[in-house]
């Protein structure tokens, strides 16, 4: 089973306060910690589990600058075999479709049975690249997958729908699956393991290497553009109950009593 896993390096903004940067089209990265996109981490683990069960290879693909090498090495340390990084200044500000086109150009040269991506990137939240990639490569896909079962030339994928309902499909390989969080329990990549992985070569591909021109990538190659990020203004704001935990709890329980909830 030859697999390709698309991974992305994203900032960890869960606990941080975010600021809009000077361009107005992204957030300020100063002081943020970066890590592999959560859903991609699950996708990688799924590929590694399949490799452990059925044999095969895992190739990582990342679109990003040199800082993405940290993320790639983490993936190699966990057990991926090879890695390709797609890097070109012209790739900057590619939208979802343009990103998929860039990644597809790298993939079409490769031998593969299965492509796994995370279902969503936690930075832009597009949920777009996986299915777009499948369309460009003319292979079937399934998004939001929470369970995979490889069979003869097919994969039985369970897709997560609203309300906990699962849709089960059989899909011919090769295919693209976008993986939902919680599908497995990702392993840990040790620091020594990551250091060892630094010895593995990461193939670099530029726009020219991929046979693309500047009208196909980046802002020029995108049909959508982000303009003016802003911080959400809560128009309705909760009535905040002040005081120490003791005092606030006292007041709150009073409010609950008034509303007949206690």
């Amino acid at each position, binding site marked *: 089973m030859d697999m390709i896993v698309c991974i992305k390096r994203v900032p*960890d903004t869960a*606990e*941080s306060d975010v600021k809009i940067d000077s361009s107005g089209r992204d957030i300020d990265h100063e*002081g943020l*910690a*970066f*890590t592999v996109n959560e859903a991609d981490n699950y996708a990688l683990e799924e590929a590694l589990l399949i490799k452990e069960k059925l044999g095969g290879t895992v190739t990582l693909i990342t679109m990003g600058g040199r800082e993405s090498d940290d993320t790639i090495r983490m993936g190699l*340390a*966990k057990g991926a075999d090879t890695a390709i990084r797609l890097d070109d200044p012209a790739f900057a500000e590619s939208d979802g479709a343009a990103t998929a086109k860039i990644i597809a150009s790298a993939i079409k040269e490769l031998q593969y049975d299965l492509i796994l991506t995370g279902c969503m990137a936690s930075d832009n939240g597009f949920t777009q690249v996986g299915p777009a990639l499948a369309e460009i490569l003319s292979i079937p896909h399934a998004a939001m997958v929470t369970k995979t079962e490889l069979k003869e030339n097919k994969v039985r994928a369970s897709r997560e729908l609203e309300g906990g309902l699962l849709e089960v499909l059989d899909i011919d390989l090769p295919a693209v699956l976008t993986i939902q969080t919680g599908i497995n*329990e*990702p*392993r*840990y*990549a*040790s*620091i*020594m*393991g*990551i*250091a060892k992985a630094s010895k593995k070569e990461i193939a670099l591909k530029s726009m020219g290497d991929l046979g693309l021109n500047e009208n196909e990538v980046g802002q020029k190659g995108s049909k959508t553009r982000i303009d003016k990020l802003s911080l959400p203004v809560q128009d309705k704001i909760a009535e905040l109950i002040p005081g120490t935990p003791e005092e606030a709890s006292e007041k709150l329980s009073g409010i609950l009593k008034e509303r007949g909830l206690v």
Partner: protein
Amino acid sequence: MAVEGAVLCKELALFECIQCGRCTGGCPVSLRSALNPRKLVYEALLNTRFVPVEKAEIWECTTCATCAERCPKNIRPVDVILALRSDIIESGRVKPAVRDALESTFMHGNPWGRAREKRIEWIGDAKVPILEEGSETDLLYYVGCAASYDPRIQNLAKGMIKILQGAGIKYAILGNAESCCANEMNELGEKGLFEMAQEKNLETLAKYQFPLMMTTSPHCYHAFLNDYPQQKFEVLHYTQLFSRLIREEKLVFTGELPKKVTYHDPCFLGKRNKVFDEPRHVLQSLPGIDYLEMDRSRERSLCCEGGGGRMWMESESTEERLAEIRVKDAVAMGAEIIAVSCPFCLLTLEDAVKTSGNEGKIEIRDIVELVSDLVE
């Protein structure tokens, strides 16, 4: 992954072992788990091919190193456990909570999943000097991750600055430049992460001038004192500083603590670093205190099971927790307060007070809290 017994024998000089069993006899955790240090050494001697993932009991170890302490041949069975842990770490198959603590330490400089820039939130409105790069101070207070982020332990940091200020000491903290000492990462077997943290921390510390570093936690103390290769600054645990200040009459107590107080020696201060007297000196200096000594004290202190990465691991055992035994013993001897000097002991013992049904009967207080209550 596997670890060859023969390799362990060679690297850890295990051939000296006479299988006397003093190690297991002193291992606090062997009371309630399958952990058997003697047996592990025995298996190594037999050139067993260890498959560490099959040895769940190695995660029960709190790395208190009582086994190493008691060995008449100066062998360190705890190092066998650490070698097996390292093997599992390298394979990546650690429990999710451990994985998260390790990844958090790498990404955020603390094992609690908290943002680096929120490390000094505990300060609130208080005036706490934060050392600027290139500056100097007399005492660098190394707050530590637990005291920075855990709401219960933040009280210790607040108490510490009150005491330092009251004693007129020129001190400062590193603020958000402070990063995890990574001692627990080392005890979990993630040597690479520990070395990386060491390197980064020493690089950071080189930017400041200070002759003395004082820690809240015995774990930070242990790491900086024993493992960090540096000659620049002295490292003290806060109880050692307080003891010094009391002797120099710089800590002046007002008020009394008319309670029966006993002291629980933390493994990383006591057993591992032989700091037994200073904490007692501090406690016994508190006016009005009725100090009681536990039977299992000093080298024989009963581990609370907070160290060795145990803060991030559920025990597999259903036997009574050591911390609960500790609480019950303290209650039985009539103590009203168990004084501690380690954030992990504080958290595990407080938990044990609840789970053993002794809420209201006994309190767990850190020495810094008791001192802070009695100084201006």
